[in-house]
């Protein structure tokens, strides 16, 4: 498949706020079901093993006219829950048979309660992952929660979810993670070849396509991208941080690159990169998923970091591993996790002499000029004043 064709397909999926693909997927088989999930992390392997389609619900972006949603929230609450409610009350999420709300923050947590009140006929699950990373304590709790979730999904599916079903799903998601790692490694090595807006669209496609199809799409993209030669710009290399929940407008990502920054790592769609290594496909699959979460999951603002000395280390490591020259903190307005975390992460960067800049956005931000100017100034300052 040609690169333009791949990106065009991803763009179509991104633009489709009616989730037509989900309806088509359900109609293509008998008794198919789809489960929506908010950012940041749910174990999609379980949904897949139940024969269902996991669908990332990431708000309405900058193309959705939020009419009803604003009546559900005060002005000081971020934008993603109001556009998500808008999607729901306008019937766009009727294709979903259930909705999972991860323990991202209090707003997403309380959104689960709003769903319980407004859509009581759906399977609604607030998914509380442990903030205790001791395998015997947090792991035991999490294993039991995963088992409960498997039982609930099996009931909705109308059939048992066997260990082999789950192992097969784990294997498919391992392959997907590997493909995404390859994509990220390719961008880091040759950022001129892999524009970040394209990476973003590819990652977004993974929020709706079946996992095996998405894996193939990434492989196709990498192969197609290697076939062409794109101009190399005199951009600096940056890591973007803070975009894990409410989504940046695509225009923002384009602006960052146009302003002179190659993004070499980011925190888009963390659900797909949450587990840092493959989950073993032998043994008890629930236990394996639990162990993976406890022992090797990504660090983000939604998680507790045990040990003062470790705070910010993950971001610093990413800067170093990707030879980045700075960090752009792009946080949604009123995002508690990102904004509360930011001063600690900035302190960790300062201690290591890593420059950064910070701004806020909303999913429907339309004016990119100030962001472009800020990112451009940041890029210039790195080029002019960086020790390198």
């Amino acid at each position, binding site marked *: 498949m040609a690169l333009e064709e791949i990106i065009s397909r991803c763009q179509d999926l991104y633009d489709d706020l009616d989730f037509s693909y989900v309806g088509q997927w359900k109609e293509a088989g008998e008794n198919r079901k789809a489960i929506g999930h908010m950012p940041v992390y749910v174990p999609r392997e379980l949904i897949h093993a139940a024969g269902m389609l996991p669908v990332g619900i990431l708000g309405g972006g900058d193309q959705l006219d939020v009419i009803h949603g604003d*009546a*559900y*929230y*005060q002005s*000081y*609450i971020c934008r993603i*829950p109001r556009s998500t409610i808008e999607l729901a009350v306008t019937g766009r999420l009727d294709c979903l048979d259930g909705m999972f709300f991860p*323990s991202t*923050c*209090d*707003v997403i*947590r*309380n*959104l*689960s*309660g*709003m769903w*319980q*009140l*407004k859509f009581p006929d759906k399977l609604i*699950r*607030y998914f*509380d992952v*442990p*903030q*205790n990373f*001791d395998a*015997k*304590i*947090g792991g*035991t*709790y999490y294993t*039991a*929660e995963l088992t*409960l979730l498997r039982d609930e999904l099996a009931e909705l599916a109308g059939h048992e979810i066997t260990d082999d079903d789950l192992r097969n799903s784990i294997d498919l998601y391992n392959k997907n993670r590997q493909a995404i790692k390859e994509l990220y490694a390719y961008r880091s090595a040759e950022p001129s070849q892999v524009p970040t807006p394209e990476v973003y669209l590819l990652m977004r496609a993974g929020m709706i396509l079946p996992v095996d199809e998405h894996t193939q799409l990434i492989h196709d993209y990498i192969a197609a991208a290697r076939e062409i030669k794109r101009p190399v710009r005199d951009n600096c290399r940056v890591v973007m941080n803070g975009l894990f929940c409410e989504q940046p407008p695509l225009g923002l990502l384009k602006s960052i690159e146009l302003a002179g920054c190659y993004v070499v790592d980011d925190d888009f769609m963390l659900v797909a990169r949450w587990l840092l290594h493959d989950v073993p496909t032998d043994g008890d699959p629930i236990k394996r998923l639990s162990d993976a979460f406890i022992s090797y999951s990504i660090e983000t*603002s939604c998680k*507790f*970091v*045990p040990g*003062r000395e470790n*705070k910010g280390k993950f971001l610093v490591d990413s800067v170093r591993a990707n030879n980045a020259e700075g960090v752009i903190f792009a*946080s949604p*307005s*009123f*995002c*508690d*996790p990102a*904004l*509360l*975390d*930011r*001063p*600690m992460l*900035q*302190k960790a960067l300062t201690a290591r002499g890593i420059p950064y800049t910070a701004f*806020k956005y909303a999913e429907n931000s339309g004016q990119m000029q100030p962001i472009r100017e800020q990112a451009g100034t940041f890029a210039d300052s790195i080029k002019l004043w960086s020790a390198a």
Partner: protein
Amino acid sequence: MSTAKDQQAEVQKEDSMLLQKAMISANYEALSTAHDEGKKISSTFVPGNLNELLMCFDFVRNLPEINALQAGMRKKSGGYIMEAERSGHSEDVCTYVKSDLGMMAKGQVGPNGMRLPTPDLLLLSYTGCFTFMKWFELVRDEYDCETAMLHVPYQADGKVTENMRNFVVTQLKEQVIPTLERVSGVKFDIDRLREYLKESAKAEDDLVWVLQSAKNRPTPIDAYFGGVYYCGPIFTAFRGTKETTDYYRALREEVAGRISQGLGPLTPEGPMGEERIRLVVEGPPNWTHFRDFWKMFYDEGVVVVASSYTKVGGVYDFGFRHDPDHPLETLAEYCLGCYTNHSLPSRVDMLCNYMHEYSADGFLVNSIKSCNSFSAGQLVMLREIEERTGKPAGFIETDLVDPRYFSPANVKNRLESYFQMIEQKKARDDARTAA
């Protein structure tokens, strides 16, 4: 024109308020002198606080929210918040956090004018509020001291499961208690914990009696503006102490006295006049203009008969009591049961129950900018409660300790309109009943 000093002199206080003030002052004194006296200090949060457990290890207890609240009432928080914002904290996040960090940056001077020492231990009971987790990390970043973290799962389905309870108990046994032992040098004595829990249960009985006294007409208490005083000792550094048991017994007797005389609540300007409107209020109060805010209610004969904020440090009026026979399990149940750890449907059920049980005329949300744990979803709750009870609901917005977010004219205007709406509805209902 009366001076601020004259106004201060005119403020009416219940005896129990004076008793509580003495307790709080003594605790700040104990905090200020703890290290000189060889005592250890623990900082911990209000919801899900493990006060009885901390006392087993002789920790003096410091509560950052209470420091922020005190700073708000003493008109210091605005400066603290701006100090924190100057050092890079976003204007969008919780002002309790920024008040605390700003106070630290400005020398950590407590309400008693003395410096609050660096704690020896930070104990995070992560209960019902995501911000606590980040606040804890921020404070941990400032203090290089020992930490203990207790993750309390959210009651998403309105019930405590065995897995949740076991998770909390295991953390207490395997991690929290060993850390407390190591930092304090005191060995854990479960019988000592049982004794404190016995005291807690006695005080909780009396607190519930006091809160439920608002079912009387007229109510002898204001369960929001007065209620925040009543729940003070049991929510903070005092639950489980003999003096707290005595405080609640004295409070109960004081309230019983008012019932027998047919009196309403005591406001800062003396006994409240005629009770015209009874409200249930959801959400925390504003602390920076607390008295002005209260006055907007009692001037209009409006009294709060039940509130959710007085359940934020523990929900006792649906039967829960600390149980000395199951000490760790009861601590787990307590943490799991705090108000903001309940799902929205559970909170709606609870508030509808209050509307009915306390014969309320209306339901008011004071939506707090700082507190997404409370605020996100309140507009849906409001509509649901209005629909279920048929009573008018009102909505105002303020903040905990950021004076920039308290607009007296706007709040008063909204409240007055709302109170008029309730009166009109009451008159219509009365006319229908008479017909």
